């Protein structure tokens, strides 16, 4: 794994503002790109562990992760900076769009532009999941858990609450079991 570096407070805020403002189709894919590849605040594995915790807590996973990552680097100030960076930019854009909505929706080209972005964002999000899976190299039984989550959400359309609370205990148990088998207690 490549070396990681601690962001300053300003970098934390600006990095999160970037993820929020560019986060078409949800911010999870952008968040990983900025944190792991572009700025190297965390390794792929550290980021994934925080995101996994953010996933089982209520609220958006990336929002929960912003609290945890901000806290890790700069305590309460860091958590507030990361979280506000994530929400303030897009909130401003959204208010602007809502005010312009009538003109915006009918302007020529705008609908096609958004449509093109949506298709690209879908490809980006799928690729991000694949890339994370490849980089993390989970054992086969955890790959099965990931595929189960994907199928349950995308194809069976089960409620996320049900998916998370039925798969989380299994995933935790399988992962702990493997760790204890591979390195027995001293």
């Amino acid at each position, binding site marked *: 794994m490549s070396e990681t570096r601690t962001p300053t407070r300003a970098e934390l805020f600006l990095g999160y503002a970037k993820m929020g403002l560019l986060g078409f189709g949800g911010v999870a894919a952008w968040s990983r790109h900025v944190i792991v590849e572009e700025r190297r605040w965390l390794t792929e594995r550290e980021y994934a562990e925080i995101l996994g915790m953010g996933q089982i807590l209520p609220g958006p996973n990336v929002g929960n992760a912003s609290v945890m990552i901000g806290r890790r680097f700069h305590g309460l100030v860091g958590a507030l900076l990361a979280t506000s960076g994530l929400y303030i930019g897009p909130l401003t854009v959204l208010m602007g769009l809502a005010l312009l909505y009538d003109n915006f929706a009918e302007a020529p*080209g705008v609908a096609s532009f958004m449509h093109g972005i949506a298709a*690209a964002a879908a490809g980006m999000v799928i690729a991000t999941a694949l890339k994370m899976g490849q980089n993390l190299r989970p054992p086969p039984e955890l790959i099965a858990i*990931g595929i189960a989550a994907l199928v349950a959400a995308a194809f069976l359309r089960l409620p996320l609450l049900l998916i998370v609370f039925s798969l989380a205990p299994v995933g935790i148990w399988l992962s702990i079991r493997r760790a204890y088998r591979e390195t027995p207690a001293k």
Partner: protein
Amino acid sequence: MTLLLQIFLAFATLSLVAVGGATAVLPEMHRLLVVVHGWMDDATFTQLFALAQAAPGPNILAASLMGWNIAGIGGLAMATLGMLMPAAILAWYVAGATHRLRGARWLKPAQFGLVPIAVGLIGASGITLARAATTGWLTWVILAISFVFVWRTKYSPLWVLAGGGALGVALL
């Protein structure tokens, strides 16, 4: 009870059941805002959610937009705080707990056991987005180029988003 306090409480309640984010609580949000409180009609609710989806940023910001629609700037502030604060406070304490437990032998594997769920659900949201976004061969081409670009390179995905938008304007 004032309207602003009611808005705060409605969204704070939603926040605590929102495992998986905004899309997960969409039905419950609809029930509270449209059916229980009668703050907006069906069409407005759908339109505001679609607008929040089209804009960048966390989808949970749909809540802010709805608060704004109900009660102006005060409603926006109450809905946003209600939606974000309970979850953020919980995340803060969980982060503290994992920090205190950091030496425990089971902690890292337990955390890693949750990772495939998060990754699988990112994949699922990509598939859900793809279903809505692919309306013809050109959108499939844009999706495929973007997929390969993000999968195989470390360049900024901004290039494919901008390219996708430009192709959309030129050809769709």
